[in-house]
């Protein structure tokens, strides 16, 4: 057994793993040139088409994130600019493989000078280059490595990562590489420990390795003591995972026994595929702007399908859907008003919906139809005066009546308001809302008169400003007097620095990003309200 060796690199994906070392062979198969430029050009174009077909097939099993990465490679392969460069070399006498390698290597050289993000794209270019070379040489598709192996290489291609079976564990240890590479992103989302920048020493020797992706270290040919230490740490990490796993599904309760609802904010229903509804008490905010990203206004059926999917996912838990909040920093071409000198104080949220009632009416109809499938609630953004709530209420009642008259199943959902304009926060009892949700990001920007997208005044836009906290406490108290639910769905709900103050202010419902659920529940559990 060779002597053990510890190597230090940079952490790229956290986690701890042990396994046999596998070094994927570089594709260096020889190819005989036909010496006929027409034939070489044909061979190259065929190899490129085969590579595109491979990547397209791989994208089907790669999941959303992996598919997006492969889509980049496909777009590069489809680009005339890359092909033309290679075909020019072939016409001048180069063989197809040499011409292709040169064409891609020119691009790689350009990326080497850029910032780390662009340097990290080199792995994608090497990936697509070698895939085409493999098809030219007829050696594409070598066997995937053993499950549970530690992959050791100079760098790793995204397509090789995606073709590897990680279900039995395993890890990645690279001599070069970058934490911002596509492979690193994939490794983090799949939970595969990964270390980069270990230097060439790792390429030469070692048959077994322990990879610590959090510390950024690799132990090659670990001695018995190192393996014992590994098993002890792995057991501790698993025990910690079980605690998080067990408590994330428990309701949040303060140390003195006060229950707090913790819900999720949702920007795109595609996120739901990765979230177990049992970890939250419902959806506190659905941003419906996602529906408008495809260009054009979504029709009623498409909206009904999107809202129904969310309600079905929540499985009986409440789902609060915010009507379109366009304008401000979220323009939608063809809908929002262009050329306003101050869009944050302009035609946004409910102001736009009432100015353009057509799309708003369609959205209200779709929401009322989806509401037959579960406890859906409608929330209106940017409300400033009671007349706006009155108008929205009247339009909702009309939509429900129309649906009933047409014999289309529908239910009239509760209609609440987002509290983000100071004029509404200070007189919230005048609006007749069925529930309140404090949008603390906009409320902070309007109370402090500091735009959240202007770096120079970012320090002023502080949600911890006592004036903001005092206003939140008043809204919570007003809601309690009226007997209606009050929640908060801005960034501060998921910030451990603010959670105690929000609970002290009287809030018992917080809506946070899905990734902040565990942290928020843990923060709540440490608060003592003296109840």
């Amino acid at each position: 057994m060779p002597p053990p060796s510890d190597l230090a690199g940079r952490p790229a994906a956290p986690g701890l793993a042990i396994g046999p070392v596998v070094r994927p062979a570089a594709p260096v198969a020889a190819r005989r040139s036909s010496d006929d430029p027409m034939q070489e050009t044909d061979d190259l174009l065929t190899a490129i088409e085969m590579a595109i077909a491979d990547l397209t097939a791989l994208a089907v099993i790669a999941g959303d994130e992996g598919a997006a990465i492969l889509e980049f490679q496909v777009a590069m392969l489809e680009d005339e600019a890359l092909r033309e460069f290679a075909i020019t070399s072939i016409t001048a006498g180069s063989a197809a493989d040499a011409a292709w390698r040169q064409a891609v290597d020119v691009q790689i050289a350009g990326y080497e000078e850029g910032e780390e993000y662009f340097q990290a794209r080199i792995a994608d270019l090497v990936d697509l280059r070698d895939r085409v070379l493999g098809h030219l040489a007829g050696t594409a598709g070598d066997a995937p490595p053993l499950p549970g192996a530690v992959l050791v290489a100079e760098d790793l291609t995204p397509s090789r990562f995606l073709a590897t079976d990680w279900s039995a564990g395993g890890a990645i240890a690279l001599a070069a590489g970058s934490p911002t590479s596509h492979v690193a992103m994939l490794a983090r989302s799949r939970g595969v420990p990964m270390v980069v920048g270990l230097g060439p020493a790792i390429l030469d020797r070692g048959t077994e390795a322990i990879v610590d992706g959090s510390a950024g270290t690799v132990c090659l040919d670990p001695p018995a003591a190192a393996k014992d230490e590994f098993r002890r740490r792995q057991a501790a990490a698993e025990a910690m995972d079980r605690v998080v796993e067990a408590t994330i599904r428990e309701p949040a309760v303060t140390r003195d026994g006060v229950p707090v609802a913790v819900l999720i904010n949702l920007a795109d229903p595609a996120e739901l595929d990765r979230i177990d509804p049992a970890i939250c008490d419902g959806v506190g905010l659905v941003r419906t702007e996602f529906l408008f990203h495809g260009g054009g206004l979504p029709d009623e059926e498409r909206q009904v399908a999107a809202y129904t999917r969310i309600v079905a996912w929540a499985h009986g838990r409440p789902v609060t859907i915010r009507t379109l909040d366009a304008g401000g920093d979220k323009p939608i071409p063809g809908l929002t008003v262009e050329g306003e000198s101050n869009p944050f104080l302009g035609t946004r949220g409910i102001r736009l919906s009432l100015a353009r009632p057509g799309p708003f009416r369609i959205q209200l109809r779709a929401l009322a139809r989806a509401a037959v499938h579960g406890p859906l609630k409608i929330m209106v953004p940017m409300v400033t005066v009671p007349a706006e709530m009155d108008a929205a209420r009247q339009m909702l009642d009309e939509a429900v009546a129309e649906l009933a008259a047409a014999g289309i199943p529908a239910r009239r959902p509760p209609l609440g308001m987002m509290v983000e304009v100071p004029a509404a926060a200070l007189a919230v009892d005048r609006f007749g809302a069925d529930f309140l949700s404090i949008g603390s990001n906009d409320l902070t920007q309007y109370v402090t008169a500091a735009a959240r997208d202007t770096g120079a005044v970012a320090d002023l836009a502080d949600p911890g400003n006592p004036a903001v906290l005092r206003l939140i406490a008043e809204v919570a108290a007003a809601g309690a007097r009226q007997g209606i639910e009050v929640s908060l769905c801005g960034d501060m709900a998921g910030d451990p620095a603010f959670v105690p103050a929000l609970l002290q202010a009287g809030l018992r419902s917080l809506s946070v990003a899905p990734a902040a659920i565990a942290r928020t529940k843990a923060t709540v559990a440490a608060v003592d309200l003296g109840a």
Partner: protein
Amino acid sequence: MTDTSASGSVLLTHEVGLHARPSVKLTKLAKAHAARIELAASEAGPWIDAKSIVKVMATKAPKGTVLHFRAAGPDAAAAVEALIGLVERDFDEAVPNAASV
């Protein structure tokens, strides 16, 4: 059909600049238009083909760059408007818990 020309510019606010996924979206949207469309990271050029991802990625435009578009062809104005819209919407990349509540 009459050929027209159009131009416009927009501030790139995406955190890591004009990187892989935004470039895919930008070139796809450009290819959906008939007009010849060019892009530059400076008004003085160099102008590059906005339908070529190889060339768009090679600009390596970081956050804070003002991207300039110019187009010539039957749908030039719509093309420039659509591309500017895409950049303004930060390439439709939903950021969970972004400052939009």
